């Protein structure tokens, strides 16, 4: 059987942690799940940002591996800094949406190489019907006199630090919920029985850096999306 050491350890860790007490999901409740793509996520700090924001807010959440998720128990699935989105993660996202969960999918492709960007764009287009444009550098000459904040309009107005590069959204169905420099960079739309929230500008690094506005936005998003304990 072709299995890498990393993958085996991933399975083993999933089995072990599934039996541990702590921030696991209550069998009778639906909660927040953080899907860690490991090498598929390009900013570890983004994952750390979501973890610290959820923990400091006292939210009920758990970290999951795509292969070991129980979709029916997931109210909100967060996918930080996605770069490569492997098939099990795609299946987890689609299953959660079909089961009625909200999925916050954060793209981390702004700094990626062209080849990685194209692969990312294909997965978003083919499996989630999200259309993105090529990354835009918000600081092209490094001499800007103003900060290109990301202005969110839903679920609450919020102004969050940019992360230097964004992937703007193409024309498509759904409601644009954030813009930066006039570019649409986040949307929400119904998908299956659930709701997809796509972020083209990473929020995780701002959470990680302790940005209070970013944290309030996330928690409001979780409440609106139905994450119990949020």
């Amino acid at each position: 059987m072709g299995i890498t050491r990393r993958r085996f350890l991933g399975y083993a860790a999933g089995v072990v942690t599934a039996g541990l007490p702590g921030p696991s999901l209550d069998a009778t409740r639906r909660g927040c799940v953080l899907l860690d793509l490991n090498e598929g996520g390009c900013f570890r700090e983004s994952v750390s940002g979501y973890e610290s924001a959820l923990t400091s807010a006292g939210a009920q959440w758990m970290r999951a591996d795509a292969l070991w998720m129980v979709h029916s128990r997931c109210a909100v699935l967060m996918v930080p800094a996605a770069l490569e989105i492997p098939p099990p993660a795609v299946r987890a996202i689609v299953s959660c949406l079909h089961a009625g969960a909200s999925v916050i999918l954060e793209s981390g492709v702004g700094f990626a190489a062209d080849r990685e960007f194209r692969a990312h764009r294909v997965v978003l287009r083919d499996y989630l019907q999200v259309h993105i444009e090529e990354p835009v550098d918000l600081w092209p000459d490094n001499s800007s006199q103003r900060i290109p904040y990301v202005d969110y309009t839903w679920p609450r107005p919020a102004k969050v630090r940019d992360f230097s590069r964004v992937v703007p959204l193409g024309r498509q169905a759904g409601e644009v919920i954030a813009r930066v420099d006039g570019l649409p960079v986040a949307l929400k739309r119904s998908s299956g029985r659930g709701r997809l929230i796509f972020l083209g500008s990473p929020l995780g690094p701002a959470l990680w850096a302790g940005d209070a506005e970013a944290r309030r936005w996330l928690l409001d998003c979780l409440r609106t999306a139905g994450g119990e304990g949020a």
Partner: protein
Amino acid sequence: MKKAIGDNMIPKEWGFEKGLELVKQAGFDGIELWLGDTPWFQMGTPDSEVRELRRKVDNAGLVVSNVSTGLHWASPLSARDPKVRAQAVRVVEREVETAVLLGTDAILLVAGLVTPEVPYNEVYQRCLEALRPLGEKAARSGVRIGCENCNAEQRFLISPREFWQFLNDVNSPAVGIHLDVGNIHDTGFAEQWIEIHGPRITRIHLKDVMTKRGRCGDQSVYTNLFLGDNNWPAIRGAMSKVGYDGWLVAEMEARYRYAPDQQFYDTARAMDRLISGQL
């Protein structure tokens, strides 16, 4: 205390060996090697050539005081782009590797850059995350990482207590401060930095600063020892108070317009006066 000066002070047309002769004749005990700043010491310089550099330093009757680099100004550990951060980490690792080859136990790095684009809180966190594993690697090699206080240029860790807290957060005995007494400008007093950091000081960079002059064109705020606003008797007193007996490394930004070798002699004499306390 021992005196050293950076090899980036050597006039480029002189070459390394002639420069070493000058450093020795001027009265220095050692030389600071700047990775990436001179033709003879680049990231791509193989180990065999680094060993050859050491042989030349030995032959000149000198030792390597420490390895420094300015490469982190272009590729900081605090960059948002993971590829840039990876390059920054590689620079530190190469500094450690070459320090071992060159027989020294200290390296310098500029830990992070706060910019309009990359805010302070991100820089702080990213530097911690980078330095913790780097500290472990350095410790295994018997090398200490000295994070330089580049206050005004770096816009990071501006006060000594801030720097102290940062080192506490890194929490590695192999990560300390490479203190530059010229970089504090009018945001504080070098002698207080020395008192606060004491045993955490890996090396001390010496230069003087004109605190009331802003950078203007090619006019430097930095100047030769005793020409600026540093309180040198207080700095010397603080070194004694904390028992600092390590390397003093001259780092002159403004160069003599004529007779560049004279700056080496003048700097060495000034450092002798500082060490002897005859101020």
